[in-house]
């Protein structure tokens, strides 16, 4: 039981080393002749106007909120799906009601226009 997660831990470390190797190799092999123009921000040759990190369209955040609801829903439903054989029909129907409530939430977001991209 404990062993399976040791594997994942070592795997994560090794998976970090593998992409690092060619990047470090490139540091030694590649030429490095920086100059001001080369290090400038590349926006199709136009000079950058203003700050990049500005306030952004709110629509992106609304999608993020809707996503959050469903992501949490899935986190709650996975145990329900795993224990499916042990559940009586009543518990299954309860799970379905839970999904339906969230479906109602999706419908609400839809009617409110939160899903419109404009």
């Amino acid at each position, binding site marked *: 039981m404990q062993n399976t997660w040791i594997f*994942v831990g070592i795997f994560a470390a090794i998976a970090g080393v593998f992409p690092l190797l060619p990047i470090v190799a*490139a540091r030694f092999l590649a030429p*490095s002749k920086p100059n001001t123009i080369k290090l400038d921000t*590349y926006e199709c040759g136009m000079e950058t106007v203003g700050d990049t*990190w500005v306030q952004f369209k709110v629509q992106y955040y609304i999608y993020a909120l809707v996503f959050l609801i469903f992501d949490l829903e899935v986190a709650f439903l*996975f145990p329900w799906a795993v224990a499916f054989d042990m559940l009586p029909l009543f518990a299954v129907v309860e799970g379905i009601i839970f999904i339906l409530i969230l479906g109602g939430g999706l419908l609400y977001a839809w009617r409110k226009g939160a*899903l419109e991209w404009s």
Partner: protein
Amino acid sequence: MSFWQDPIAVIGQLILDLLHSLNLPEGWIVFIYTLISVVAVASFGLLLVIFLIWLERKVAARFQDRVGPNRAGPFGLLQTFADMVKLVTKEDVVPEKADKLIFNLAPILSLIAVLLIWAVVPFAPGWIGTDLNVGVLYIAAVGSFGILSVLMAGWSSNNKYALLGAFRAVAQLISYEVPMLLTMMIPVLLARGMGMVQMVTVQDTWFIFLAPAAGIIFLVSSIAEIGRTPFDLLEAESELVAGYHTEYTGMKFGMFFAAEFLHAFTVGVLFAILFLGGWRGPGAEEIPILGMFYLMIKGFLGYFVVMWVRSTLPRIRIDHMMAFNWKFLTPVALALLILTALLDKIFAGTALRLPALLGANLVVLALGYWISTLMSRRQAKERTKFKKRPVAKPA
């Protein structure tokens, strides 16, 4: 068990015997053995990338009536190695205004996110990195790192195209994650467990026959998740230069590139495991190497569909893409989940399970398609209804 039937088991036993003969403490033996298997699985993933890039270029070329790479080595097989050498010797430009730490971390994280999935892929009976009992959830969790790396790359570049690409990417990736997770739950529901080995061993009938609609939705949302055409809004070159990796050069760009290709094939393999029975096939239980062969064939089948879609369909508009996800895929996936749960509970263990689930899936798919065409027709009517048409006025 002979070498040709199960090379991994034979080699593994050999290494274990060698480690035991060195008289190391038990903890060290476990650690070194795990380390060797980790390196084996991870390098398999990376070596696969080299082959995949060649294959994709060849297949894409055939779709476009070209020959593809054919100069370096037989059939151009060495082309990718030449490209790698080129990428390593390219100058690595880090823009002055970039957030250096995050800028350098993003390409590494993007490859880690994809490689980590391979830790739980069951290649054949007994051939698996580690059989986590929460395998599917682990894949969903690890896959989210990819989204993080895209946002890190776009944000730290301090470039308007990169930031715009990253925002779009995040909006698209998190949106399509919802139907993907919901349809990943249907195999979990049918298998009664999240472990990847269990997922394969219970598939006496492939889940694609029990849940064809879920399989299709999973594949579609996965294509969106890897950002391939028709869903390549995150790097739409006609609008965004190159999207989130505009500022990346040399090997750091190469990491994003490799991660994308490996992710595309990983999606094919996941589709094979969740819906096409993984390594299941005639004789696979006795001869594990056959199981590996079956899994690769099925994985390449999924990958071929991804390539096929890529070279067939044009890019779709971002509002259409979002509407397709939230107003079609997600409701259909929810309906499928409800129906699968209900029918599987009622018909569990009876002969009616397969026809009931199959029929329900097809009905949901047909109904969803019918309603969506009806709605898009109504929308088109409303769009043209009140519009004033340009009239030529007398001068």
